């Protein structure tokens, strides 16, 4: 049987990371979240911090990349600049494709659902949670005040949707962009994992 892929999009604090990790343990397949940055750095020889700086962000807003262009309207060097967000995205997406060729795996974020859109066995999931639950999770994880956590959540949501919409041409968090959208607050993490697992087993014909 061919490799299969599960791509997880998630809101910050929705438990997407944990759900992906548990799911990969139960299905016994590889799991990639931030690990992708390290691999992309090794593959390209470029420092990891460049990938971290560009991770799930984009420059594309008015004046955002003002400078990318300053010198001339014919600046073709721009396309050859390997530290641009677009170039780093390209390197990272090559890594995602290579990993997906080699084995079954779970990818969290990084537009993997778009990058692997031609893969024959893909399941794309989006995970949300109640705002209050997300807030509590971030407060606990980052050890910050409620005010600060709220700010971080709002900013990250905005960045991730900007990133996803720009690179994938789809809409972040919109049901038509995925196969399954689920709110982890209703069943809790473990039950949500079980639910997704049974959904995956049926839709990907794992058993």
């Amino acid at each position, binding site marked *: 049987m061919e490799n299969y892929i599960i791509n997880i999009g998630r809101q910050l604090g929705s438990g997407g990371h944990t759900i992906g990790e548990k799911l990969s343990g139960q299905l016994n397949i590889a799991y990639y979240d931030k690990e992708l940055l390290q691999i992309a750095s090794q593959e390209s020889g470029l420092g990891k911090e460049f990938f971290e700086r560009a991770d799930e962000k984009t420059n594309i807003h008015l004046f955002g990349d003002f400078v990318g262009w300053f010198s001339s309207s014919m600046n073709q060097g721009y396309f050859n600049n*390997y530290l641009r967000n677009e170039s780093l995205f390209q390197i990272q997406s090559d890594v995602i494709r290579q990993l997906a060729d080699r084995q079954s795996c779970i990818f969290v974020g990084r537009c993997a659902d778009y990058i692997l859109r031609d893969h024959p066995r893909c399941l794309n999931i989006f995970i949300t949670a109640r705002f209050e639950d997300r807030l509590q999770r971030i407060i606990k994880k980052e050890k910050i005040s409620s005010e600060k956590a709220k700010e971080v959540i709002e900013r990250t949501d905005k960045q991730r949707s900007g990133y996803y919409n720009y690179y994938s041409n789809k809409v972040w968090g919109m049901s038509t962009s995925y196969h399954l959208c689920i709110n982890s607050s209703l069943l809790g993490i473990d039950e949500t994992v079980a639910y997704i697992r049974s959904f995956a087993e049926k839709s990907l014909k794992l058993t």
Partner: protein
Amino acid sequence: MKREKSSIPLGLGTENIGKLLAQYAIPAIIAMTAASLYNITDSIFIGHGVGAMALSGLAITFPLMNLAAAFGSLVGMGGAASLSLRLGQKDYDSANNILGNVLMLNLIIGVSFSIIALLFLDPILYFFGASRQTLPYAHDFMTIILLGNVITHMYMGMNALLRSSGHPQKSMFATIFTVLINLALNPLFIFGFGWGIRGSATATVISQFVVLMWQISLFNNKNNFIRFKKGIYRLKSNIVKDAFAIGMSPFLMNAASCIIVVLINRGLIRYGGDLAVGAYGIVNRVAFLFIMIVMGLNQGMQPIAGYNYGAKLQSRVNDVLKKSIIIATLIMIVGFTIVELFPRAIASIFTKDNELTEQAVIGLRYIFMFYPLVGFQMVVSTFFQSIGMAKKAIFISLTRQILFLIPLLIILPEYLSVTGVWISMPIADFISVIVASCLLYVQYRQFKKNHFKSEIE
């Protein structure tokens, strides 16, 4: 478009720096030189075939031409960036949509710009510094250019798309073809048919039209992954939005340079008369040639510096920066030497008129005064851009072209008359060289500190 290309070419981190620089910079230098020869040939034929006043009229149209180019690059550049992203993902449907959308947008913007500019052509030209003597030339030239503006916009847009769709050589040839056709048609129209300055404008439009046809035939090829077909022309909001967002920066940069040229022209006309503007037309063409060559070098340096900086190969970063600065300085020294030694010979390439020649000689001498240092400034600015420190890059670039130049152009002519206009440019050059030196010095202290830190770790 057939060949699979890996995201990072091999060798950027290992190959000899001089060899890499030659490999990346030479094609870019050829393309840039060709583009500036285009403008030079126009000026030469107009200067000799039509006269000194026509050269002044031509110089009056520069800002309007800049503005037209700014609108042309608005979508073309943004579309090109989006296109290269989609092609990297082998997302050919989206890529095709971008192609169609860019074509449509260029059509809309090109036609709108022409209509508005044609309606207010004379007031615009007067505002840009036209006089009774120069207006007819500027008017005739611009009318034809504006009627062909859609062609120019589509040609520029297609060229940007060609380049980003993996055909940089074809895009370079397209530029060279327009130069050659323009070179052949200019004498025919001006001397053969006696069309005057209109002949030159017609040659420009026709050369771009011919090359546009060739570009379209390339995008019509069924073997290409991206090509014209039904259904790609309907505007899609996300494509349009991205194209404008990315294209806004080159647009503003071009628009800003339009304002500068207006200031220069108005200053020259006020204190030096029509011929001073014509002299600037000549000086500008000559100066631009050397600036463009260095820009080509910078394009070649960018991927090398960027990659090696990213890979933390500091000694290679130093090497490429050093070599680029040396080459850029040599290029500028060649320009400086030729211009300062033989300014009359240079000016006489463009005109036989004695007074215009004299004024151009003065202008050439002033403008090239600090050019041997300007190469350094340009390389440093691009260097900051390539290592992802865009704010510093734009700041250095702005100091030379805008921040110091605008106040100088407003203040100095009050006291020094026409000399004040000329001398503003080398002064702005010099200040920006100092700014660039300081920023580079600070950056290198930072590099050393980081290096020291990583050694301890």
